[in-house]
């Protein structure tokens, strides 16, 4: 077979990639080949692609800096069209056949970016630049331009085609991290019988064992990891989740895990796990070094370089320099020299280095420069050389190199611990924040707790797992801990960061382009608290959340303000640990599944009647347009039908609460502003409910079915809320009242037959209820047979017409509606929808709570003040009505509006101004709450809340509808049949 081209920087052998399975992919339209086992980053490096992104602010070319989710630079877009995902870190994207990736910043291209104008004018863009550079004429002038230049990727257009899942799970022990510590602990805990979930963020467990040349019991570490994983997979009490990041820890130790579904039918799965105990085995993150121009492509973390060399068999350079402040980077030197890759110099910022290490380096043949640092770098699209200087200033000249491996020490990955409110302390020898006090039900092991030695990590992980198992009541057996027979160079004593004095920019945060100069400026301007410092400089606020730079920022801030780093402290770690897509948070709850659809019991009938549906919490017909008829015209027609003959409306969603018990009347007297106990059996009354602040929260009629039994109608949307409120008063406050509340809303279907011929329709339906006005007057109710169905009939009206509400068990809904339509046919009955009802009630000036009222409306504001004042006993909200603000005379009051030009439509939300000379901007005098074209009056009408409205009847006020102004006349809020003659027929 023909061997695929390896790529210029790929080694012929070694690594954990499958050279037999080449994968083609494109980056910025150029085709490349990588292998199974590659990440996008390793494949790009193997192909010699150096600049993969432009930086956030200065648009400088950036390369691949790390080998994990901490990547600050290599943000790319994956996929095309609607499936395109912005802001992916190339370092964690597994390579797949046909992968399409693109650099997301840089215009017109990543190699030639006009945005780099910012770089050449960088003194104009210091920290807080938007308050400084862009003051003239004002920030708004520049904002659009700056925002366009600064974005991170483009948002998706159109619906997301991917599927997302969510899972809830419980376990005894959640292990965060599947490196050597996590695997060791999982083994022990699993053998003790704990239910274990182990989450590992990479596609395979093993951690450093997969990227370093470590041997355990004389075998390669990755083999031990593979064997351990397959053993764990066999155990039914272990759930091993690879490609899964623990993203956050919340109250009571609830944790969220984001799983990537490689090759699954779903893209991501968000787990919510309730563990009894959490073991943090998340390792540590290598930090960068601060020196002038430390951001060029070709500058990479030393550990990341080992990862690419050992795991992916990629050496992304030909001449290497290593710069470090600790011992661990020496492992990179040894690994490279072992592969005969020349390392021209090791620049160590520390003055003294262990003699053993010095000797090993000497034997390997690399030059060591102690007490020195990088004083500059060159190379626009990629590194060409570095300049080295001693701390005291002696220049040691340039070194040609195309790869600079840096190590600024290791920061334990303590984010999750901090989410759980564990505390941290600064550890001087390792120059990092390590766990201090642990939260309840938490343990930390391995590098996450600051351990450096692998053997210590394995021993401690096994011990921690035993301890946890015993605590949870599962004593563990002794389990052999593997012996490290070949280790790696550990960081040992870490030297403090020593930025050189230079006028050139030295980056602290590569992702957000924050430099040492920005830090100095922030301190000069007084932003010395770490939280202020972060926000002013924006350090650590990008996609990577400063995983490779924050520690340096805290150290720098300490140095600039003469404080110890421990005194500076850290900013607050908040979830999520890595970016979580909105898709994963939504799960399946989008589109059709966003909310349950509630259908009317006679839904199919309404469909047959060509109802035009809208979601009002229930799927309800707005109206029933005829073919070719607009919704507006249909509404006008339906309203006229009700006014002139008769119509039928499906009112089934109306809230129906049954309240019964010896104290029911006493209780409801306290609930409504109206008198309830005086209502005779079989009679109906309209009532308003307030909250304790005196604000109207619901309205509706109530029927006294028996001395101790009432049926309350609430607004359709309010049924559950009001039922809950009644329960709260009964259970928490008035426990002595013997009352039961039942929400029967869905048990009963309810149809309103309204119009001058309504009584004729009921007679035609056939009923044993006496319909004579004297027997069943307005606001009375009776039970009996209607169309041979057991029914309750109430004479109540929301239209102003003679109106019967017929309630039947929900299962009889379609039968009753069919019967009504048939019986009404000779009278020209028409079904009418909710839009038509809204016009009918507006013509009559009936209040619609929540539309005409808001969170400040009292009974007096809407004309019910007298009823509330006259009521003898106490009721919820009564005392608040006496507060001075509620008794003020200039409150907004419910009025009607008639435009001077009767054809001029009002729009709800338009503001009102009293006085011809008043013009916006001005304090509003009120607003339009409801408006429509009244077909009955053939003119535009509106309802409004107007300052002191009741005393302004007859006055002309100005409507402000966006830029338009026109005049309306204030009238009483009833446009039709003010004497209620039609109701009482």
């Amino acid at each position: 077979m023909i061997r695929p081209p390896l790529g210029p920087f790929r080694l012929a052998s070694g690594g954990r990639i499958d050279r037999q399975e080449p994968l083609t992919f494109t980056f910025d339209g150029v085709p490349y080949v990588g292998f199974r086992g590659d990440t996008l980053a390793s494949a790009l490096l193997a192909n010699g692609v150096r600049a993969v992104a432009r930086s956030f602010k200065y648009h400088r070319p950036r390369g691949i800096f790390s080998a994990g989710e901490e990547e600050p630079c290599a943000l790319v877009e994956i996929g095309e069209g609607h499936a395109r995902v912005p802001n992916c870190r190339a370092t964690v994207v597994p390579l797949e056949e046909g992968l399409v990736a693109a650099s997301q910043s840089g215009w017109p291209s990543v190699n030639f970016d006009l945005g780099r104008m910012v770089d050449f004018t960088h003194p104009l863009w210091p920290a807080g630049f938007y308050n400084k550079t862009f003051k003239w004429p004002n920030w708004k002038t520049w904002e659009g331009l700056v925002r366009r230049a600064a974005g991170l990727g483009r948002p998706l257009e159109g619906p997301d085609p991917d599927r997302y899942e969510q899972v809830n799970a419980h376990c005894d022990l959640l292990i965060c991290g599947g490196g050597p510590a996590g695997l060791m602990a999982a083994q022990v805990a699993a053998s003790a019988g704990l239910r274990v979930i182990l989450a590992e963020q990479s596609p395979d467990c093993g951690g450093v064992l997969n990227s370093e040349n470590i041997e355990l019991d004389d075998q390669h570490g990755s083999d031990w990891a593979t064997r351990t994983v397959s053993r764990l997979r066999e155990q039914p009490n272990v759930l091993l989740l690879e490609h899964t990041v623990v993203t956050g820890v919340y109250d009571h130790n609830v944790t969220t895990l984001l799983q990537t579904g490689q090759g699954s039918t779903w893209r991501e799965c968000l787990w919510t796990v309730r563990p009894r105990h959490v073991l943090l085995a998340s390792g540590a993150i290598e930090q960068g070094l601060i020196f002038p121009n430390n951001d060029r492509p070709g500058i990479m973390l030393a550990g990341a370089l080992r990862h690419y060399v050992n795991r992916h068999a990629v050496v992304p350079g030909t001449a290497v320099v290593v710069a470090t402040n600790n011992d661990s980077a020496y492992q990179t030197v040894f690994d490279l020299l072992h592969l005969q890759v020349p390392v021209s110099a090791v620049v160590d910022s520390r003055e003294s280095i262990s003699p053993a290490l010095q000797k090993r380096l000497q034997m390997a043949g690399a030059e060591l420069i102690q007490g020195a640092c990088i004083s500059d770098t060159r190379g626009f699209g990629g590194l060409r050389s570095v300049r080295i200087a001693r701390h005291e200033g002696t220049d040691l000249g340039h070194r040609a190199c195309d790869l600079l491996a840096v190590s600024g020490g290791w920061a334990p990955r303590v984010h999750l611990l901090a989410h759980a409110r564990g505390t941290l302390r600064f550890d001087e020898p390792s120059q990092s924040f390590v766990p201090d006090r642990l939260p309840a039900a938490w343990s930390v092991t391995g590098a996450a707790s600051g351990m450096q030695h692998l053997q210590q990590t394995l021993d401690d992980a096994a011990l921690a797992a035993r301890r946890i198992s015993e605590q949870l009541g599962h004593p563990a057996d002794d389990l052999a801990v593997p012996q490290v027979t070949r280790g790696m160079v550990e960081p040992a004593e870490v030297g403090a960061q020593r930025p050189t004095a230079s006028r050139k920019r030295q980056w602290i945060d590569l992702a957000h382009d924050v430099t040492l100069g920005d830090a100095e400026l922030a301190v000069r301007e007084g932003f010395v608290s770490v939280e202020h410092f972060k926000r002013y400089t924006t350090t650590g606020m990008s996609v990577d959340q400063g995983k490779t730079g924050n520690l340096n920022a805290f150290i720098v801030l300490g140095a600039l303000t003469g404080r110890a780093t421990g005194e500076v402290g850290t900013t607050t770690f908040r979830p999520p640990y890595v970016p979580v897509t909105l898709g994963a948070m939504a799960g399946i709850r989008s589109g059709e599944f966003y909310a349950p659809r509630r259908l009317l019991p006679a839904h199919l009938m309404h469909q047959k009647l060509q109802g035009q549906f809208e979601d009002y919490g229930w799927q309800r017909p707005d109206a029933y347009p005829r073919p070719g008829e607009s919704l507006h015209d249909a509404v006008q027609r339906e309203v006229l039908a009700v006014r002139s003959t008769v119509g039928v409306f499906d009112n089934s969603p109306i809230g129906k609460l049954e309240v019964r018990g010896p104290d029911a009347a006493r209780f409801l007297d306290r609930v409504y502003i109206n008198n309830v106990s005086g209502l005779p059996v079989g009679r109906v009354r309209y009532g308003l409910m307030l909250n304790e602040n005196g604000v109207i929260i619901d309205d509706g009629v109530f029927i006294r079915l028996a001395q101790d039994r009432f049926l309350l109608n609430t607004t359709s949307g309010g049924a559950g809320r009001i039922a809950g409120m009644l329960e709260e008063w009964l259970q928490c406050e008035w426990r002595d009242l013997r009352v039961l509340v039942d929400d029967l809303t869905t048990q009963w279907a309810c149809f309103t037959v309204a119009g001058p011929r309504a009584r004729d329709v009921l007679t035609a339906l056939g009923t044993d209820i006496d319909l004579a006005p004297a027997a069943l007057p307005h606001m009375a109710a009776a039970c009996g047979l209607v169309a041979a169905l057991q029914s309750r009939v109430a004479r109540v009206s929301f239209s102003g017409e003679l109106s019967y509400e017929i309630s039947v068990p929900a299962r009889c809904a379609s039968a009753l509606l069919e019967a009504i339509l048939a019986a009404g046919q000779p009278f020209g009955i028409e079904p009418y929808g909710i839009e038509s009802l809204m016009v009918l009630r507006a013509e009559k000036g009936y209040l619609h709570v929540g539309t005409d009222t808001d969170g400040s409306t009292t009974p007096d504001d809407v004309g019910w003040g007298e009823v509330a004042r006259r009521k003898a006993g106490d009721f919820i909200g009564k005392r608040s009505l006496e507060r001075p603000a509620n008794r003020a005379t200039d409150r907004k009051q419910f009025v009607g509006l008639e435009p001077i030009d009767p054809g001029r439509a009002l729009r709800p939300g338009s503001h009102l101004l009293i006085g011809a000379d008043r013009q916006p901007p001005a304090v509003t005098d009120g607003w339009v709450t409801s408006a429509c074209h009244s077909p009955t009056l053939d003119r535009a009408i509106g309802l409004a809340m107007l300052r002191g409205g009741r005393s302004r009847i007859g006055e002309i006020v100005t409507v402000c509808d966006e830029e338009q102004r026109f005049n309306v006349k204030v009238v009483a809020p009833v446009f039709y049949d003010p004497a209620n003659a039609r109701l009482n027929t």
Partner: protein
Amino acid sequence: MLLIKCPYCGVRDQTEFRCGGEASRARPDHPEHISDPDWAQYLFYRENPKGLLRERWVHRYGCGQWFIVSRDTVTHDILDSLPMGDLPPKGRDAP
């Protein structure tokens, strides 16, 4: 997300419950006889302690019962849950 013990149903997820605020709140017996400031005290003022707090919760998507939860507002530890009736009727004597 808290784990809350309903005295009637047992330990359940917070999403099944709704919090009704401080349990020490009690409606004055004769609102009409008290001053505006006293009424405002009942309406708007809360203890809001840093530490142990007694709250009303309702098992909204369960049995529908209100009960009293003792919660540490700093750690969110839940110390106990009591049926409403186990407290003095007015609930004023919360610790």
